Each structure stands twice: as C-alpha cells, then as structure tokens.
C-alpha cells in the first residue's frame, strides 16, 4: 500500500487527506470506493457533481435551471464582500449556486434530483437556491414523477439576510403542493444538514434517509454548548442519534443509497406493481 501510494505522489493535487485517520489517498482510489476512506471507513464530503455521479443511473442526469444565480441584492459586506465570496465559490465548484437540479433515473426510477453542494458557501441557502428548489418541485409536478433532494448545508445564507430566511417557507410551501398531488418526496441527509435547511425541506420528506454519522440538527453543536455551558454527549446530533430519537427512517450506507431511493420511489409510485 505504502509503495503504491509513493509512486503516484507526483501529482500532488490528486491526493486527498482523510479527516478520520489522517492518511492520504489517491483520488481515483477514493472515487472507486464511493469517497469512503479505505482505511478507517470515514465518509468524505463530496461535491454535488460527484454525488450525482454515484446517485443517478449512468448517463441519465439532465441538468436544468443551470444559469440561476444570486445577485447580492443587499450589497452585503462583512470582512469580505459577498460578491467576492460568490466569485470564489463559483470558480471553486464550477457551479453557479449551492444546488444542482436535474431529471434522471435512480435505480431505474425516473425522478427529479436536486443535490446541494457544501463546497459552495457551505451549501447555504440563498434566494436563488430556494428558487431552484421550488423549480425542482414544480418540475416534478409537471412530469408527475417523484422528487429527491440530497442535502448538505450549514443552513440559510446570512449574506442575504431575510431573503434567505424566507426560502424556508417558500420551499416548504412548494412541498405542500407536491404532497397534495400525491407525488413522493425522498429527503436524503448528508454531513452536515443543519440550521434553516434542516428546519425546512430536509425534515419534510415522505421518508428521510441519512448517511451514517452525518451531523444533523437545528442548532450547531457550538451554539448549544455555549447556551447550556457544557460539552455535548458523544454521537449527539449524528444520524444514528436521530434514528434512535425517531426523526429519520433509515441510515443507509453510501453505496446502497441509490438502491434505497429506488425502493421508496417504487413503493410510492402511481404504478400498482413493481
């Protein structure tokens, strides 16, 4: 193993360090292993594009609403102008927003798939993110197929102030309409899903699936520690904890996720038989 890795070390950027065990691994090796550490089994956070690759059936994903993006209506500046943060996020991810929409099949089942990108400003939800999520719901209603949203987000985007907060109600409202049409919504939670994203569409799935050990909660652990003035128990706000408390349906290994999404799309589909 050590020898094998040494050989390829020429291309530095092709190596990624595992936060779990500290070892470094070759990108291709990780990719083949669904971005799971071969040594300690830690899950790497993955980009929306890579998530789509391991979720949608090969070659089926057709992106829509690709050009929707935020325009910094508040002209927000903290230590750095929001405009600059946005530019960085766009060049880093190659995407224009913190969510990617597409139509695809998963495990053979047609659906609308929306995937949040944690690499894009922490997956935070701004007004354009909210708009894209609503359009995903509307697309599902138009095509009469199910909706799958894969979340990874720190919550609402502070640099858009109240405009970002309102997206929580807007997207939840759209989901209420989807529900009335009898179309399924599968919510998939990945590390991390917190704040205004957890407290809106992420928790509204007809079924809620989560990757193992993902951080999921309303308040961030640091805020809770500061409020109560003591440390938090081991495993608090992790997927397994939420499963135990009754807030998610199944904890699913990354490799099995498409199969599970497919199962539920079939259970809830309009076709009577498999």
């Amino acid at each position: 193993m050590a020898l094998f890795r040494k050989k390829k070390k020429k291309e530095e950027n092709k190596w990624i360090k595992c936060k779990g065990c500290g070892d470094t691994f070759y990108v291709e090796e990780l990719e083949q292993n669904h971005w799971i550490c071969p040594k300690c089994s830690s899950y790497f956070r993955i980009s929306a594009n890579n998530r789509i690759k391991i979720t949608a059936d090969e070659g089926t994903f057709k992106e829509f609403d690709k050009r929707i993006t935020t325009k910094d209506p508040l002209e927000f500046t903290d230590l750095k102008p929001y405009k600059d943060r946005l530019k960085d996020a766009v060049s880093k991810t190659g995407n224009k927003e913190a969510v990617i929409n597409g139509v695809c099949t998963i495990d053979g089942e047609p659906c609308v798939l929306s995937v949040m990108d944690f690499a894009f400003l922490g997956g935070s939800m701004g007004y354009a993110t909210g708009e894209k999520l609503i359009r995903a719901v509307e697309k599902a209603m138009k095509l009469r197929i199910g909706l799958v949203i894969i979340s990874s987000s720190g919550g609402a985007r502070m640099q858009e102030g109240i405009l970002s907060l309102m997206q929580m109600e807007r997207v939840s409202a759209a989901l209420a309409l989807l529900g009335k049409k009898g179309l399924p919504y599968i919510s998939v939670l990945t590390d991390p899903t917190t704040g205004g994203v957890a407290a809106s569409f992420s928790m509204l799935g007809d079924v809620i699936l989560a990757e193992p050990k993902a951080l999921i909660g309303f308040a961030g652990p640091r805020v809770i520690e500061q409020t109560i003035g003591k440390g938090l128990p081991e495993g608090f706000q992790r997927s397994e904890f939420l499963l135990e408390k009754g807030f998610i349906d199944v904890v699913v290994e990354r490799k099995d996720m498409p199969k599970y999404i497919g199962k539920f799309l079939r259970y809830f589909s309009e076709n009577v038989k498999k």
Partner: protein
Amino acid sequence: MLVLDFEKPLYEIEEKINNLKAMANEKGIDVLQEIEALEEKKNNIIKQEFENLTIDKIVKIARHPNRPYTLDYIERIVTDFTEIHGDRVFSDDHAIITGFGYINSQKVAILGHQKGKNTKDNLYRNFGMSNPEGYRKTQRVMKLAQKFNIPIVTFVDTPGAYPGIGAEERGQSEAIARNLYMMFETEVPVVVVVTGEGGSGGALAIAGGDKVGMLEFSIYGVISPEGCSSILWRDTEHSVDAARAMRVGAQDLYELGVIDEIIKEPLGGAHRNYDEIAGNVKAFITKSFDELLPLSKKKLLDKRWKKWREMTTQFL
C-alpha cells in the same frame, strides 16, 4: 420601569413637565410659559432622537424590556380569550401562547411567542425561546382552526428557537419544518404581526401567513445581529454592522417585499403607549380580515401561493 440610555433625556424632560404641572396645581401659580418652553424642548428631543432612529436603537427598542408582548395585545384586542395548553405528546411550552377568542365579533385562533416581564417570569417563559413542544402546540391549534373554520392571528417575538440538548432530541428542526408546511397548507386566513424580535426559523415557524404586518421598530432576520457578527466578523464587536448589513428593520423588509405593511408605533416606541399600539395592531388585523375572510378556500390558497411563490423573485 426600565429606561434605555438614549431615552433618558425624554423621560427627564417629561418628569420636569409633570412636576411643574403638579406644582402649579398645588400652589396656583402660572407656569404656562415655562411649560411651553419645556414642551418645545421635548419636541426637539423627539425629533432628534426618535424620528430617524438608527438601526442600533431600533434593535434596542425591539428588545425593550417594557415592550408589549403577546399577552398584552391579547388583553387589549381579544375578547373572551381562553388559553389552551400542551402538545399532547410531551409537555406545555410556556414560551408560546395559544388560545381562542374574538376580535370584534369575529372568532379567532391566537398563536404567539411570549417573553417574560421580569427575571422570574423570563425563566418561566424561557425568554420567549420555544422548544419543539411549543411549535407542536401551535400545530394542534392550526388543525383545530381549520376544523372549525377559524382564522388565525399570530404574534411574533422571539430571539429564536431554543438551542438545547432536549430541543434537539425532540426534533426542533422537524417541529419548525412541520410548522412551515402547515402554515402554508391550512385552509383558513392567517394574519401575522411581528411585534418585537423576529429571530430566524423560530420566528418564521409562526410567520408564514397571508398578510404579514410588522411593527415600525421591530426587527426580523435570518440570525441575530450578535450571531452574525460572531460568525462573519469572527468577533462580538460588529453586531450593529451586522444588523445594518442584513437590513433587519421594518422599513428594510417592506422595501425588500417580504412584509405587507408597517404598523406605526407611538413616538419613542410601542412601550410608551400600550393602548395606542394595540389599537394600530387591531386595525391591521381587522383590515386584513376584511380582505381575506370573503375569499373562497381555493382563492385564499391560490393567493397565498402567489404571494410566497413570487417573494424574492424580483432579485433573480
């Protein structure tokens, strides 16, 4: 009574005027000129200090310890009010008041955050920060309101949903999310009044209505100015900058198209005259009812969807 620093000159001069009047009454001397001079001084102070309040002062007024809270509005606006309690699953949350009564002769269901009036009361009310049970109690009331066709009025005033271990264990995020869903789905008119502090998701949980009014000196934001400062500026010194940058005032929200109306406050703030502000709030509610109550369920829901579907799209 608590007086904030920038309010002091006003209270001092009001006290002087009152003392002078009392003395004049007692001793029968003519102090008309002196009083007129003081009144003019008072008006100047009001003009300087209160007519164009800066955001740091607005934040302070929105959180003023004397500010009227949900129960104060209920007392002045709602007749024959009965509070109901509990989420039927875990407990009763004292940070949120729910109940039924009448505004004029119209039946109403009331939901509102409740802060405490003093330290002891605040501990009981958890400073107006609800746990999941509070939101689930409002869900019960929304279902009842729909079942018996009663319009809903909400009063929003919370620093935010409570960030605690128990709150997370019992699904704070699910509780808020379900509220957002149900507030949209409910087939009766929903009128929202932001009365003080609209703190993030914990506020929005009871603020997804057909008509949203906001008191002139209340605030409403995605995170508290202090929280924003500590995350984005990485210190606690920039909460005023954060409040300004996030545009948390009623005027800002109106310009951004997020609220429908600004409810005028008495000079110096709602805490200076409870009856006057209650009257203004009542006028907003009845006006909203006049518009919403005649609508069919379908029209009401279509209009509600249009409102939320279009919100913030002007910036795309």
